[in-house]
């Protein structure tokens, strides 16, 4: 009985935090399911990819790998490169994800941009265990994506509402979490470094080569300026 109550409190606290992710993931997940279908891969395949591969933008990229000559090594290397930003997430959560026991396995397995943003910015409300709060955010986000994919693969043809632009919910989420980080004055230089470095790389290298060069530049600035930034 007590565990049921504990779970209920945790879900009640975690769910509102994940509503923006639900909006974005359902929209993008449905779109992914439909796109996979039009490329000849039905709901079973798209859902399997979302459940095991679980990585939004990478899955879109991977569609091109499913419609050309079989090359699993390229798929592996591409996934490494597109998702390299996750390394930053793990580094930031080393402390928060200590002592979580078995739950940690799933929480690292399903650590995506959106879950990281929520977990690193939000603290659990009073009376809710940290571990439960972060676990449920992770699980709900995961289910939205996998559920959205299944829905798109199954019912894609019947969805007639124009959802163009609904995925902006995720951009808006990152903007809001950026502003939440901004509230703490000691975070501001780092927020600006992230924006500035990524913006500069985008201007120079273009959209297709953003992530790794931007990560490298951010690391260089953070490490090079450590003495001056660490006051």
């Amino acid at each position: 009985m007590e565990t049921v109550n504990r779970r209920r409190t945790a879900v009640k606290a975690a769910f509102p935090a994940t509503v923006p992710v639900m909006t974005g993931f359902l929209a993008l997940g449905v779109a992914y399911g439909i796109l996979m279908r039009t490329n000849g891969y039905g709901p079973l395949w798209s859902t399997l990819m979302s459940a095991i591969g679980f990585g939004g933008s990478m899955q879109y990229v991977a569609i091109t790998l499913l419609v050309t000559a079989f090359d699993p090594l390229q798929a592996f290397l591409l996934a490494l490169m597109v998702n390299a930003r996750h390394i930053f997430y793990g580094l930031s959560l080393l402390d928060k994800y200590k002592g979580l026991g078995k739950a940690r396995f799933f929480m690292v397995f399903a650590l995506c941009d959106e879950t990281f943003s929520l977990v690193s910015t939000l603290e659990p409300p009073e009376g809710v265990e940290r571990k439960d709060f972060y676990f449920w955010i992770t699980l709900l986000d995961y289910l939205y994506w996998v559920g959205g994919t299944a829905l798109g693969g199954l019912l894609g043809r019947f969805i007639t509402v124009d959802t163009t632009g609904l995925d902006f919910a995720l951009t808006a989420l990152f903007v809001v979490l950026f502003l939440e980080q901004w509230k703490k004055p000691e975070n501001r230089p780092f927020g600006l470094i992230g924006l500035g470095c990524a913006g500069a790389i985008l201007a120079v290298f273009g959209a297709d080569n953003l992530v790794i060069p931007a990560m490298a530049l951010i690391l260089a600035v953070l490490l090079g300026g450590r003495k001056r930034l660490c006051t």
Partner: protein
Amino acid sequence: MYLTPFQTVAIILAVAAGTQITRWLPFWLFPEKKDPPAVVLYLGRVLPAAVMGLLVVYCLKNVSWTAAPHGPPELLSIAAVAVLHRWKGNVLLSIAGGTALYMLLVQAVFV
């Protein structure tokens, strides 16, 4: 389906393996029982704010600034999110308001 079922499963597993390495690497390098070096703790403390900046840019990477409408739907909607968030401080309201405005702009105004 272009690939055989066996090949498709192999591609899914290859994508999953590459992705999982990026998620687990820091946890492998710095196991729970050992204290990570000070520089890693420093990065862990400052990276979340920097990453939010990177993710905002990442979301906007495919916006064309040189062709019409030069990014206004995105810029206007982000401004709306920021103003709403400053004003009410309600995460859901800021996101819903910005998203509704964006959908209106791309579906009805800048078409």
